[in-house]
């Protein structure tokens, strides 16, 4: 249903696609990742929001010039066919590693907390089977799943009340003990959560109301930033700076603070439900990767087998015999820097577009 190249994403789809392309399983470690600025970390979501609003401008400006084309097509049009294909291959690799990164983080947390006696192989296979089902339905299927993921998980914000119950609210007072380098390092370490913003470059052609895409995307970002703010504030008031620096997954510890009369160890439920957000985010990246392989191998024609190929490749990266040092290098460095490049690429392409259009008008 709803497959094919036509405009099919309404405003709700855009809002929740944007929302779910951000964060994902990195929410679990975000407070730790931002901990170089100590208790000031709760201010970083605001900075992220401002940066997102700025970065979206060139992205959507570029998309508005090519309303029916994904970034893969735009690359080939502006950079040239072969160079464009080269860039597309790099984006494809980036998307594959993003899928692997998100999946691995999820299955590792599940393994360490929920299923300690299991290897990650079976969980990875089941995860990818469901992901293939989601992506097979096209971008609208992913958008619907993203809406579902949001509503299945947003209520868990209620659990933060236990953190606030034991809170030291003085932690919230901004301090000036960190320098600019600390702030930049924190933002870099936490940037994984915001890298999905650039995915609008790929699903923009499917948006029905493209004129309001900026507004709807910003709403999606804002919803995520509010969630991020809640996590950060709850972490700041509940943990000491030492804890923030040394706890790998502070959100997990926030779940452990929950005390219900009829259920214990609520983090099992929390991690389990996070599969919705994780699947949604990984699915969007897998869809982008599939579009990339379509662009590279079949001249942008839709081929379902590319989805299966990419799923197998991504699953192999997660559960195959890949050295852990290589995985860490790929997930923590390559993916992040490639994400930055993807943020800046629209600016470069806009300049090329300007030059080309000037040349075209002068001739």
């Amino acid at each position, binding site marked *: *249903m709803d497959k094919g190249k036509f405009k099919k994403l309404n405003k*709700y789809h855009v809002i929740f696609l944007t929302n779910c392309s951000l964060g994902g399983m990195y929410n679990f470690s975000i407070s730790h990742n931002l901990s170089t600025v100590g208790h000031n970390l709760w201010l970083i979501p605001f900075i992220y929001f401002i940066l997102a609003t700025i970065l979206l401008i060139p992205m959507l400006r570029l998309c508005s010039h090519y309303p029916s084309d994904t970034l893969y097509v735009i690359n080939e049009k502006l950079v040239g066919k072969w160079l464009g294909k080269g860039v597309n291959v790099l984006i494809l690799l980036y998307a594959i590693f993003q899928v692997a990164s998100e999946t691995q983080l999820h299955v590792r947390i*599940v393994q360490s907390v*929920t*299923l300690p006696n*299991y290897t990650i192989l*079976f*969980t990875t296979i*089941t*995860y990818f*089977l*469901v992901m293939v*089902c*989601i992506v097979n*339905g096209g971008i609208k*299927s992913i958008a*619907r*799943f993203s*809406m*579902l993921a949001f509503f299945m998980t947003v209520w868990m914000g209620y659990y933060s009340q236990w953190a606030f119950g034991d809170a030291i609210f003085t932690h919230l007072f901004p301090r000036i003990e960190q320098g600019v380098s600390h702030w930049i390092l924190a933002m870099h370490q936490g940037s994984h959560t915001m890298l999905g913003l650039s995915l609008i470059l790929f699903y923009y052609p499917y948006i029905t109301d493209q004129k309001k895409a900026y507004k709807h995307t910003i709403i999606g970002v804002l919803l995520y930033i509010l969630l991020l703010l809640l996590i950060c504030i709850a972490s700041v008031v509940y943990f000491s700076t030492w804890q923030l620096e040394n706890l790998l997954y502070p959100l997990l510890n926030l779940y452990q603070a929950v005390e219900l*009369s*009829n*259920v*214990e*160890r*609520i983090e*099992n*439920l929390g*991690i*389990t*439900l996070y*599969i*919705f957000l994780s*699947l949604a985010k990984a699915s969007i990246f897998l869809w982008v990767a599939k579009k990339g392989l379509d662009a590279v191998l079949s001249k942008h024609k839709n081929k*379902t*087998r590319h989805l299966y190929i990419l799923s197998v490749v991504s699953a192999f990266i997660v559960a195959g015999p890949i050295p852990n040092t290589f995985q860490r290098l790929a997930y923590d460095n390559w993916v992040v820097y490639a994400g930055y490049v993807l943020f800046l690429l629209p600016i470069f392409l806009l300049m090329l577009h300007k030059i080309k259009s000037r040349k075209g008008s002068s001739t």
Partner: protein
Amino acid sequence: MLWNWFKKSINKTISQQQENQDQTSQAPERVTVESLKNKLKNIDDIEMKEISIKGEKVFLIYLSTLTKSSTLQDLVLNPLNNIGDATPKEVLKNSTDGDINDLQASLHDIMSGYSVLFFVERDALLKVNTFSVEERSITTAENETTILGPQDSFTESLMTSLSLIKRRIHSPNLKTTLIPMGTETNDTVAVVYMENIANKENVDRVLYRIKNIEYQGFVALPLLKQALEDKPFSPFPQHGFTVRTDYAVESLLDGRIIVMLNGSPEVAILPATFIEMFITTEDHYNRWTTASLIRAIRLGGFFVSILLTSTYVSVLTFHPEMLPPQLLVTLSESRAQVFFPPVLEVLVIEMVIEILREAGARMPTKIGQTIGIVGGIVIGTAAVEAGLASNVLIVLVAVTALLSFIPPNYLMSNGIRFIRYGFIIAGGSLGIYGQAIFFAWMMNHLSNLTSLGSPFMSPVIPRQWTDLLNSVLRAPVNFLVTRSGMSRAKKQLTRPLDEE
């Protein structure tokens, strides 16, 4: 991919068969005495009488099982006996001319209960509808009983069922399209809709699908309904069905399309939504408060039904630490004698329930009830004492079984039962994570399901916000001023908004 390959291979077979048929098919055969006798041989209830009308040799052909002799006498023989100077067509008021060049059409008429007069010398045909058989009378809906509201239900006779709708809607906008169906049965399917309300695209889609079904014959509507569904592999039904006339009429007024099949008391309602599988007409007769409460229980029951026993499995197998100590002690004591792992324990008891249900359904009513009660109590008690299952599980399985029958739609109940096994196996394999991943698959599957091209999960996947007023919760009737978004009706408002 597999499905595409499967469809391709089927289409290939069909096209080969059609080619063979085309090669063997000839021009329409002309009606002659010999051809009629030849085609109707070995049918012992065929009557082929030679009579004389004004000295002209005429063959009267009819099927004695579909025509009462009194009807034949009243409609054919008596008028012909008193023909006087008039022509046969003038005295037979209900007669129409038959096509002498189309033997197949004449045979179809005869087999459908027509009496055919074949004028040998003039080479002409005259047919009179003398179809007169015993029919079941209009009774209450046994499987969809309500306390409030009308009690009549559709019958196996298409014409009677159609009349039940037309008794309630006296409008020329109520359209009925009759389509022959079944290569062997030559039965009739009726597509009923309100022309001024129903979405034309939906109507065209239904007609197109029905006209393009090649099948030897559907013996009941639930079979035809499956052939009309968008996703045949789904465990969930994608169209509504009912035997209640009030529900059918309500659906028509909402812009839905009703499909009826001669010989089947059920009617299919297209398109339908997931939420509607948990709604009955009685909800509209109740006060909005009661209706909302009951609907919420039904929908909540759906989720409890699919998750309760699988949660028992996953918690006891993988996450006993999630249980409070007191509950854990109770469960441990309950399971002390049980030697099966929880997943096997649950599967065994669930299968026992299935067997009891199936046995009860296939036996005569009184024995079936006894089997249900005695089997439930005896087997349940014995299973606990024998250490096959814990008594807590017996309670959970019983609750689950009851909840699975809450949805008014029987096919949805069956779908729930099937899905539950998936959850139990997922819970037994990967614990709460397995349940979550299976739940994610199910929700994705549901969100991608369509009924006649419209999202099955409407209004959760919103088509229009006003649908929420008549979904899980039901607003007071005064607030229900728009038709459901699922219908994509031509007229959205059910009444003028400025009405006082």
